[in-house]
C-alpha cells in the first residue's frame, strides 16, 4: 500500500523539479547578461505577466510626432530663425535612452533645403547664434555621432530642452527667393546598456 501510494507522486514531483530547473536557468541567464532581448521589445506591449524588462518611449513636446511652428519666417541670405522656446525631448520609458536625430527628410524646395543649415543646441532659452550646438546641412541632418542621454521617466535627466535654428547661407542664390521647404527630423531613442 505504501508503495502504491508513493509511486504516483514521483512523476509529478519529477516534472516540477524539471520545470524549476528550467526557470532558474532562464532567470540566471537574464540576470547574467543584464540586457533585454529584441524579441521582447514591447515598446508598449510587454506583457506584465511575462518578464518585467521595462518600457521605452520618446516624445517631443509631449507627442511622438510633433509639428513645430514658427520656423517658416522668411529668411534672407545669412539670416536665421530660431525656435521661440526650446523643444522638450522626453524619455517616457523606464529605461535610459540615447537619443539622436537619425536622419532628416526634406520636401518642397530641395534647392532651398540645400542652402539651409540646422543647428540643434541644448538650452533652456533660445536665441539666434547661441553657441554649443550641433550644426549640419538640413538635408540629411543627423546627430548620430553625438546622442543625448535621457534618464528613465521620472528621474532627473529624463528630458532635455533643445533649440532649433535654421540659417540661410550667405551665398544663397537668388533662385531660392520665395521658396519653401518642409522637413522632418526623425529622432530615435535607443536603450542604453
Amino acid at each position, binding site marked *: 500500500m505504501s508503495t502504491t501510494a508513493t509511486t504516483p507522486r514521483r512523476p509529478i514531483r519529477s516534472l516540477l523539479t524539471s520545470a524549476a530547473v528550467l526557470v532558474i536557468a532562464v532567470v540566471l541567464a537574464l540576470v547574467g547578461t543584464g540586457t533585454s532581448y529584441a524579441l521582447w521589445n514591447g515598446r508598449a506591449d510587454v506583457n506584465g505577466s511575462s518578464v518585467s524588462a521595462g518600457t521605452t518611449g520618446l516624445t517631443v513636446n509631449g507627442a511622438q510626432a510633433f509639428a*513645430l511652428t514658427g520656423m517658416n519666417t*522668411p529668411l534672407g541670405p545669412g539670416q536665421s530663425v530660431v525656435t521661440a522656446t526650446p523643444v522638450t525631448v522626453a524619455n517616457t520609458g523606464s529605461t535610459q535612452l540615447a537619443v539622436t536625430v537619425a536622419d532628416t527628410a526634406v520636401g518642397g524646395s530641395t534647392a532651398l533645403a540645400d542652402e539651409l543649415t540646422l543647428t540643434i543646441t541644448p538650452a533652456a532659452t533660445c536665441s539666434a547664434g547661441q553657441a554649443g550646438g550641433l550644426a549640419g546641412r538640413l538635408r540629411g541632418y543627423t546627430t548620430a555621432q553625438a546622442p543625448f542621454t535621457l534618464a528613465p521617466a521620472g528621474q532627473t535627466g529624463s528630458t532635455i530642452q533643445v533649440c532649433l535654428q535654421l540659417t540661410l547661407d550667405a551665398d544663397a542664390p537668388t533662385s531660392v*527667393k520665395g521658396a519653401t521647404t518642409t*522637413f522632418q527630423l526623425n529622432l530615435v531613442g535607443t536603450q542604453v546598456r
Partner: protein
Amino acid sequence: MRHRIAIAVAAAIFLVLAGTGAGNALWSSPASVSSSAAAGTHAVELTGVDALTHTYTSSALTDTAAVLVRNAGTVSAPFTLAVTSTASTLASGAVVRTWASASATCATTTPSTATSSNWTNVPAITGTLAGGASQYYCVRASLTVDQQRTLAGQTTTLTARLTSQLGTAWTATAGPLTATQTVADDVAPTTPGRPVAANTTGYSTDLTWAASTDNVGVTSYEVYRNNVRVATVTTAQYTDETLRQNTTYSYTVYALDAAGNRSAVSAATSVTTIPVAPSTFYRVAGVGSSKCVSGTGGSLASNTQLVIIPCTTATTQSWAFVPTSGGYYAVVGYSNADPVWTVQTTSTDDGVRAVIRNWSGTTAQNGSTTQQWRITRNANGEYIFTARSSGKCFDVQNNSTGDNTPIQQYTCNGTTAQSWRLTAVS
C-alpha cells in the same frame, strides 16, 4: 532520467542565452519633429524723389521733400540711398540737410541732428528695414538770397538710387530717379544810361547809352521812340534811319535779360534831325573862313576842284542835299545835270581832293560812296560832312581862310576847318 533531461535542457538554454551574449538587441523608440522653412523675397522701393524738382526764386529759396524708402520684400534688409548731382555752381552751393522723419510731413525747423552737405557730397543714407517696413527721409535744400541772385540760371540734375544687398547674391535696387533743380533769374538788369545821339542827319541818328548790368547777363535792349518800340538790339547802340527831317524825337531804352526780366526805363533824350530837304538849296560856309563852297571859278564841270571863296548869291554856291541810302546824301549843285561833291579817288588817305563830278554816268565812281556824305551837327549846331567812302571829313586845307583854298578829305578832328554853316537860298 527526467531529472537528467531537465538539467540538460536547462544547461543548454542557459548556455544559449547567457553563455555567448550574442544575438541580443537594444530597445528603441522613435519620435519626430516636422516643420517648414521659407526663403523670403527681396525688393526695395523709392518714392518722393520727384518732389526734389524745384525752381529757386527770391520767394522760394528752400525746397523740402519727403523721400520714402520701403522694404518691399519679406525679409529684413539693409539699404543705402545715394544722391548724386551733375556739376554746377548750384550743386556745390546749395545747402542740403537730410534727416529721418516719422511721417511725410517734414519738420519746419531742421533738426540739429540732420546731416549737412551740398548736392555734390550728400552722405549716403543707410539703414535696415524689416520686410514691408518703410522710412521717410526729409531732404531740404536751400539757397541764400545772394546765392539766388548769383546762381540764377544754374541747374543741376539730381539722381537718387536705392540699393540693398543681402548675402553675396541678393541685390535689390530702386531708381535711378531724377529731379532737376534750377535757379530762376528774377532779377532785372540795371537801368540803361540815358541815350546819347550822334551823327544825326535829316533822316537818321546814332544812339548809344551806358550798358546795363545783370546778375546773369543782359541779352538785349529795347529802343523806344516817342514811347513806341522801334528796335530790339543786343548792344548798347542803335542807328535809327527812319526819321523825318527837322523833327524832334524822344528816345528811351530798356534792358532785358534771358529770363525776360526788364529793367526800369532809361532817362529820355531828345533828338532833332537836321533841316535839309531835297528841294532846298543852301550856301555852305566854313566856320573857320566864313567863305562858301564853290567849284573853282564857279564851274560845275566834272573834276573841278571844290574851294572856298567869298560868299555870294550866285547859284554856283547853291547846294542841295539829296538822300541816297543809309542816311547819306549826295550834295548836288544848282544845275540841269547832277554835279555832286566827290572825293577824287577811292583812297582813304588824308588830303585827297574834293571835286565836282556828275552823279550819273558809267564810270565806277558815278553814284559811288565817294559821292555820298553823312551830314551831322556838332554841339554848336554846325554841320559836319563825312565821306562815306573814307569816313573822313570835308576839310578846308590847312584851315586856311584864303580864297580858292582847296577842300579835301581829312581825318575828322572837330576843328573849324571841318565845320560848316548852312543858309537856305531858295
